[in-house]
């Protein structure tokens, strides 16, 4: 019983670490790579994207998930909401941004990604 309880507590600890404490470091840089953000299976792939500060940029999205939630991508800080047609690449234009981290997500925040501007 002792072992099971310990296992349970360890599992809880792992959940806290995995979902909250762990900070992903990897981000894809649009300056060095040609990327299309795939919207499928509950995530944006890649979901951490680096772009240059102070310059207009654009991101290319390709939605493969039929669920209605995935159909719109929002960049709330910039008042951008763009509809993503199914299986068609869509370019979302972004204004020139000051350095910082900005979230982009679907209206319900089931899909979520980070835009790192530096």
């Amino acid at each position, binding site marked *: 019983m002792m072992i099971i309880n310990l296992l349970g507590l360890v599992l809880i600890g792992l959940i806290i670490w995995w979902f909250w404490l762990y900070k992903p470091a990897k981000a894809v840089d*649009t300056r060095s790579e040609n990327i299309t953000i795939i919207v499928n299976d509950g995530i944006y792939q890649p979901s951490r994207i680096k772009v240059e500060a102070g310059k207009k940029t654009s991101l290319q999205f390709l939605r493969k998930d039929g669920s209605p939630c995935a159909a719109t991508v929002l960049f*709330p800080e910039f*008042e951008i909401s763009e509809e993503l*047609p199914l299986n068609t690449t869509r*370019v979302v234009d972004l204004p020139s941004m000051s350095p910082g981290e900005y979230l982009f997500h679907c209206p319900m925040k089931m899909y979520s990604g980070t835009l790192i501007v530096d």
Partner: protein
Amino acid sequence: MNRLTEGTTRIKTQELIIEGAGCASCVGKIEIALNNINGVDSAEMNFALRTVSITGEVGADVLIKAIETIGYNARSTNDTSDDELLDEKEVADQHYYTSLMRKMWIALGLGVPLMIYSILGGPMTVETSLERGVWLFIGILCAAIMYFAGKHFYIGAWKSFVNHTANMDTLIALGTGTAWIYSMIVVFFPMALPEMARHVYFEATAMIIGLINLGLALEVKARGRTSEAIKRLIGLQVKTARVVRDQKEIDIAIDQVLLNDIVRVRPGEKIPVDGIVTQGHTSIDESMLTGEPMPVEKVENDEIVAGTLNKSGSILFKATRVGKDTALAQIINMVKRAQNSKPPIGRLADIISAYFVPVIMIISISSALIWLNFGPDPTVAFAVISATTVLIIACPCALGLATPMSVMVGVGKAAEAGVLIRNGEALQTASKITAMILDKTGTITEGAPKVTDILIADNTYTEKYILTAAASIESGSEHPLAQAIVDSAIEQDIDPENVSNFQAIAGHGVKAQFNGHQLLFGNQKLMLKNGVHLNGFVAKAQQLADEAKTPMYLAIDKKLTAIIAVSDPIKKDSVEAIKRLQASGIRVVMLTGDNGATAYAVAKKVGITEVFAEVLPEEKSNKVAELQAQGEIVGMTGDGINDAPALALANVGFAIGTGTDVAIESADITLMRGSLHGLADAIAVSKATLRNIKQNLFGAFIYNVAGVPFAAGLLYPIFGLMLNPVLAGAAMAFSSLTVVSNANRLRLFKPQEH
């Protein structure tokens, strides 16, 4: 900044996606080929994205052809029209719906018979080897169902797990997975478990997958209805236009209409793009955009807008705004953007959502541990049921959907009434307004004043001379009252003459030389300042003012000559609309630059008791601040021209438009029709929407807060009640559907006009 005009004009800049450009050297080739086309100002390729952006007045097909000639493929990116996008979306939604329904049938095909068997008392336990064999077979069948009907949950759960996030898929995958794995352990190693715990839960796995697929499918259908308003707006765009080219009228696709094209519209047809009438006259029904039921007469040089309906005459007009620049396209854009924005009330749900799933996982584990440690026998079975049920019943979706769905419907509903709401924040604040400042001219009144009285004080001058003098001095002024005097003179065939040394004195009037005389024209203050004796005329002016007219004094060579009274008629439904505002508990205040007597007379007629009169334009925002300092949440309504600072300072700025001029951008909410009913509608819609959001959020919170402990077995020690995982699955599947349906109720909302 004018946000609506930020977007790139279709004709000026467009973007193409290039396919088959594998090397950096292609960039130069493609750019040169495009730059060589007549009409292309510049072409720049972004190699990283494989896109090229082209500036210039050239159609996409020409550009694509040029790229194909040098051996690459290209296609246009963002030029899918809203219409096509909508069609595609509907097809995609339908497809998604069908696939979910198919998955539901697969899962329920196994789940329902098993469920009935168990309800009828069939043993769900594993004791004999025959039972083991049968359950093993069912277990494998169940695994197949998990694959065919629930694959998307498991893949989604895994992908988000790897990405350090968790969502609804995670909960469903863990819940159904736990039930299945436990059941398989029962089948393979029954001896490892106490006899009472040798119970299988394959029916739960199958039923939950089936029910959740059903819930999602119904949600897709219900969601489709939430975007009805935007569909209606998009439906106003016509697909073709009849343009005059080379003296011939030809029908072309709407996206090929160029600026300055001459377009023909016949009776009963919709206006294809924005423009100015060049020939003919007609009446146009603008109700679909402005909510104004009366058709509007249009003659040469009048503006017409895309999407409105030509009723009576055949006209020719010159296209002034096409493609994404038309008022209709901008309205659609604005509504879409607002529909996806979130009012602050939704932020709490967002924060909760971010922690929700992992917290549920932790509760699930804790609950299992508590049952194992302190529960009655069979502890393992109770632990598994509680863990599974907690995972299944928790519904992050209901929370996530609560706000966006209502905003979607509410903003759309407002647009139907000719009210454009900038964003979710404006929507929320509008619902909380306690005081409303109404600008008098153009808001409560028509804004088109007319001369009503000329009282002559000095009989040396004829009425004609007086009007000539007044019109001449006022022809240089931009004041709306000045326009009334000039118009009145022109009506009597009097041409305004030139004046010299013209001087406008803010808040007083104007001063100039006319035919060798010195003219003073303005209010009492101007006269007193210049030492003009008013004798008994102050009382006469007062009398005019009491009749809601604005009296203006005219002095020639510092001697009072006449009083000219101008009156701006009150809009016919202002009284009703103001009553509606007051009935909803809002303190209505009138604001005007006019003198106190006129202002109070107008206020009295429309039933307003509080008036800020003789307010200089730059002081308007001070009055907003004054009310705010009294603790009021202030709405300010004006025509947006000299009200911009006050509109911006107010908690919610309402710009009252004339027709379809959506360029009024200093406002949070734009009323497309002139009637103040639009204002009352805007507030009514925002109140209804906020109430709806609160119901949704409350429902979603209560559901989770009550459901999770119940699922964990909190009621067991008292009532001996344990929630069945299948019921939890059904509850979860229908909780988000309930939220969407409740939001859909808003579609039935009707503002009370009378």
